[in-house]
């Protein structure tokens, strides 16, 4: 009996949620993060071309070191259009795995961990596209999931938007090409895989209508 009072155990653990994104991230990873550097460097995905680094193609392989170095800056995302204002109150996401290695899936789920607690900023996952505001695509294009993704998007009510999460979904990365609906993504969250900090910040900024 002593051990089954989970409610008290939860209270005893105390508050673990961090202030991010209102404050700086507590433990940002170096890889992936924004890179700084100059010149040409070997890059298996052509993320470095003409001395410019493209976050959407970077797989954090580190082959560009020492010409390029990670900064720890987690803002590896791009919001390319206006998110409908009605979604600012609550934001329901339907994630679909098109062809991942599993890392993006677990980093996405990590935003539910107490350190991030996405639900406190009204970001939720839904089990059906019928209740979704956003279709979140992860992984590379695969034949088997192509029709599944299209049907999920058709089943979503308006207004709706697409999020591409991870380098595979944004550009195809090193494995293949991106899912066909990724080209219409309003939010591109780069990284292989993107950290929970990057995912949460991108979703919060988009929900608030910022770019």
């Amino acid at each position, binding site marked *: 009996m002593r*051990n*089954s009072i*989970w*409610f008290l*155990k*939860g209270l005893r*653990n105390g508050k*673990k949620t961090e202030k991010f994104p209102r404050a700086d991230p507590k*433990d940002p*990873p*170096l*890889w*992936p993060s924004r890179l700084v550097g100059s010149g040409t460097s070997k890059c*298996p995905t052509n993320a470095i071309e003409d001395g410019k680094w493209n976050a959407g193609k970077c*797989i*954090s*392989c*580190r*082959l560009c*070191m020492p010409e390029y170095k*990670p900064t720890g800056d987690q803002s590896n995302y791009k919001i390319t259009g206006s998110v409908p204002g009605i979604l600012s109150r609550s934001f329901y996401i339907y994630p*679909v*795995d*098109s*062809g*991942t*290695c*599993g*890392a*993006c*899936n*677990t*980093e996405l*789920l*990590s935003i*539910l*961990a*107490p*350190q*991030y607690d996405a639900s406190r900023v009204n970001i939720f*996952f*839904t*089990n*059906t596209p019928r209740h979704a505001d956003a279709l979140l695509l992860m*992984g*590379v294009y*695969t*034949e*088997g*999931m192509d029709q*599944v*993704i299209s049907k*999920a998007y058709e089943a979503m009510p308006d207004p709706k938007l697409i999020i591409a999460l991870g380098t595979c979904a944004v550009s195809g990365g*090193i*494995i*293949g090409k991106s899912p066909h609906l990724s080209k219409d993504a309003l939010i591109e969250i780069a990284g*292989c*895989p993107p*950290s*929970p900090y990057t995912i949460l910040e991108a979703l919060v900024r988009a929900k608030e209508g910022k770019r």
Partner: protein
Amino acid sequence: MQYYKTTRGGGRYIGQTRSFSVYSDSITPPIKVEKISTEIIPGELVFNYGPSTGGLTESVRIALTTPGEIIRAVKVDPSYKLRRLKVVGLNLIDAFLQIERINGYHSSSYQAAFIKAAEDALLVEKSRGLDEELILQMELERIRSHLNVLERLCEPAGFGVPFHQIAQMREEVSRLISAIFGHRYFFGIHTLPHSELRIPAGVTEITKGIERRFALLFESLQDSKIFVNRLQGNGKIQKIWLVGPAARAAGLQYDARIDSPSIDYSKYSFEPFIDDGKDAFARFLVRGNEIFSSFAIVNQILSKGKPETADLREIRGTGIGASRVESPQGDLFCYLSVDDGRVKSIEFCAPSVSNIIAFEQSMQGNIFTDFHFNWESFGIWISEAGVEIE
């Protein structure tokens, strides 16, 4: 190949690759695997779960054949998200970038299997420092992976508090991995010519803190009748071909850390935790107890300072090699043929393939409400089952 023979099957059966049947000390031409009949009997229906729905971490279709309540047959189809990796012809570094992404959540197991197969193929002398570094990676990965399975077992039980507390610990382990290796999933750590490892100050206090909190939580879960009742008697299976925690939960003392020469674990005094319950609860117990033994190994390595890393740029030549390592879900076998420093042929035998068959067989005779607990108890990763290497 120094360790694997290509004669008759010897040792325990591990699984199949495209071209071989894999045993613990030999590889042979493939044998035929008996398939479960999924023919529908009048009065039965097939309930499709997936390929994309809530409750599934990855895309997979699970077809449950049932007359109403009892599950008569299950068929798991991992091919929806089938990825095709083009590795043949690449140099070892470029190949490595794809290999570590076969199963990103267990990338260090794939890294270790690949590095050890390359060592075997090209007769590279073993480095004790490298083994130590790979063990550190793999044991941290095992802790996080087992925490993930336990977290997923709490979710369908509606146990919100332990679910979130384990999620918190899993995140702490991810941050520890990031602090040491620079990446939360170990990507890219062996592409550099020099070690980039950093051992943060007070690291053993961090690991001991997580271990202490996990011990209290693990004990509480075992004391919870509501939780235990969902797992006991659910998904019973005992077959000699089981691997990893599923085998050890069926009373079989199978562990590649003990019976594979690929990585030397002899310096670390641990014995695999064995339970003979054969069910989802036994698999829960095995994983929980393995978290403690993995923490003990991690602490032993971390207390000594920074181990070495492998440099794949130094590996050149021609040859055929094989390796077998204990990934968090069981034996992971790699066959590698290298021609002048480039991959000529490569095949993996992934533990999730064996675990999918074990899940299908163990689900027969169970009821619908058992499904999620049993599925999660095997810790299956579709990414390593639904992949082709060309």
